[in-house]
């Protein structure tokens, strides 16, 4: 019997065909090394975002105004920890460990969503994050449910359900503020003013400036472009803001009948790049705090390993 070995070119062609036919790539399947690397980068970044995202909202758990809100917020932040877990798990199927990913984060080799480098200054920020930031995450993640890598796609499907719940809770958290006292309304509007543009930045640079996009689209890791997703988000959010009677801080925002979409103003890309490259208000603190908790946890993890070993050997 002769064994026929496929060349790399043939393997890659078969891989691309599989992707084109919308069949999921699974951990044991052959995949181009660059595809694997690209996925690790994207999934670990996504996982880190869920985990770093626990900080700005977690900032208000001990100060939530009512018992009910405290429980909702704590449960929400807990869900985000769960999302981090699913995603680390999906990335691990590609042959990288959680510890390695965390190390890459601490060394600045891995990124997380820039939105979490903005501070939560008031209680309204918690509502606005749930409403806007989780909405933006959903828009992105709905498209990622169809991503070509099986474990990532399945994690997205699971996560999306919870994110829609968060989005509704965020919106619902803002309702008493929007219909409340002048102080409460001002608090909600101020939060809107600070979070609107950073939320639009979550979708990344314009398609023309995005360095990972072309290959990611060909491999169907990414299914829709940054600008398309951003437009979807704006279109679905404007009516919600109107419902809450919150003004969107963009003088260029208006309905374009011809396009069937809202037109909106230009993002401050200098701010975008400054925050992405580490100079946002909270970048350093977010990383420090994550590193600190991780280092402080080391003796506990060590104890677990030692205890486990002793148990195995007896």
């Amino acid at each position: 019997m002769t064994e026929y070995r496929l060349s790399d070119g043939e393997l890659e062609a078969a891989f691309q065909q599989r992707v084109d036919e919308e069949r999921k790539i699974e951990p044991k399947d052959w995949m181009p090394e660059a595809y694997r690397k690209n996925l690790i980068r994207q999934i670990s970044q996504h996982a880190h975002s869920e985990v770093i995202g626990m900080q700005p909202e977690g900032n208000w758990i001990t100060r939530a105004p009512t018992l009910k809100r405290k429980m909702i917020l704590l449960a929400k932040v807990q869900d985000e920890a769960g999302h981090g877990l699913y995603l680390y798990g999906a990335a691990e199927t590609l042959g990288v460990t959680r510890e390695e990913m965390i190390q890459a984060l601490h060394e600045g080799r891995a990124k997380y969503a820039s939105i979490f480098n903005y501070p939560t200054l008031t209680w309204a920020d918690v509502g606005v994050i749930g409403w806007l930031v989780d909405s933006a995450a959903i828009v992105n993640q709905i498209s990622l449910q169809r991503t070509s890598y099986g474990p990532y796609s399945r994690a997205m499907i699971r996560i999306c359900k919870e994110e829609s719940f968060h989005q509704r809770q965020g919106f619902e958290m803002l309702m008493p503020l929007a219909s409340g006292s002048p102080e409460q309304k001002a608090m909600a509007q101020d939060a809107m003013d600070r979070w609107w543009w950073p939320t639009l930045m979550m979708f990344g640079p314009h398609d023309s400036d995005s360095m990972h996009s072309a290959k990611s689209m060909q491999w169907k890791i990414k299914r829709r472009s940054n600008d398309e997703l951003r437009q979807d988000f704006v279109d679905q959010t404007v009516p919600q803001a109107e419902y809450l009677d919150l003004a969107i801080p963009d003088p260029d925002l208006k309905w374009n009948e011809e396009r069937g979409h809202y037109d909106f103003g230009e993002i401050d890309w200098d701010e975008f790049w400054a925050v992405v490259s580490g100079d946002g208000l909270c970048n350093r603190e977010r990383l420090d705090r994550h590193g600190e908790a991780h280092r402080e946890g080391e003796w506990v993890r060590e104890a677990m390993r030692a205890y486990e070993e002793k148990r195995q050997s007896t």
Partner: protein
Amino acid sequence: MTPSRALPEFVLALGDDSLVLGQRLSEWCGKAPFLEEDIAIANVALDYLGRAEKFYRYVSELEGGRRSVDEIAFLRDSRAYRNLLIFELPVGDFARTMARQFMVDAFHLPYLRRLSRSADARIGAIAAEAVKESRYHLKRSREWVLCLGGGTRESRGRIQRAFDALWGYGPEMFEMDRHEKALIESGVSVDRSALKAKWQASMTDLLAQAGLKVPDREWSIAGGRDGVHTEHHGYLLAEMQYMQRAYPGLAW
């Protein structure tokens, strides 16, 4: 003391115990040694906050709606909170948190089992729900004490120091104020003092199993039920009550 006043006071104290520990445990969110533990501690915190909500709702009803749940939870000063001291102590390191948790879980499970048969159906129902939670809490905290005691030199040192520091806050869990005592005969409350020997035995057992020393000198500190708290209590309240104090009378 008329029973009609004893009942809301008793329930209020149970609510305060739950709220204060729930608040403390929620401080861990995002700071635990690893993600699975962030999730697990948040679960326990949510259980306690949920209990607080149920007890306060009952208090509010017993008072004829004079105060809402949140007014009870957020608008009293330190002297009016009746939680036991062990619940309000700072979280400390992970060992301190788990040692406290084992001490209170080992108390709560048998206590709540009895309380679930309270002559007051409402208290009984809340306690019955809580039994299920505490069973899981105890399983976890027990496992952690064994792990930290049997882990490394450092973890054993830390968990031992934690028990040494917390030891004297245990006995207060078996004391009763006049309100609680007044409700024993009618079967509404449970005689806590009857649970003490068994609790001590379960502490001694587990500490021995974990290779830890039972602190050799018995000591005890109390005051919570009289509103005489540690100095940490005021800061806990300042943080927790911030919104209600800064924006009085608003709906959130």
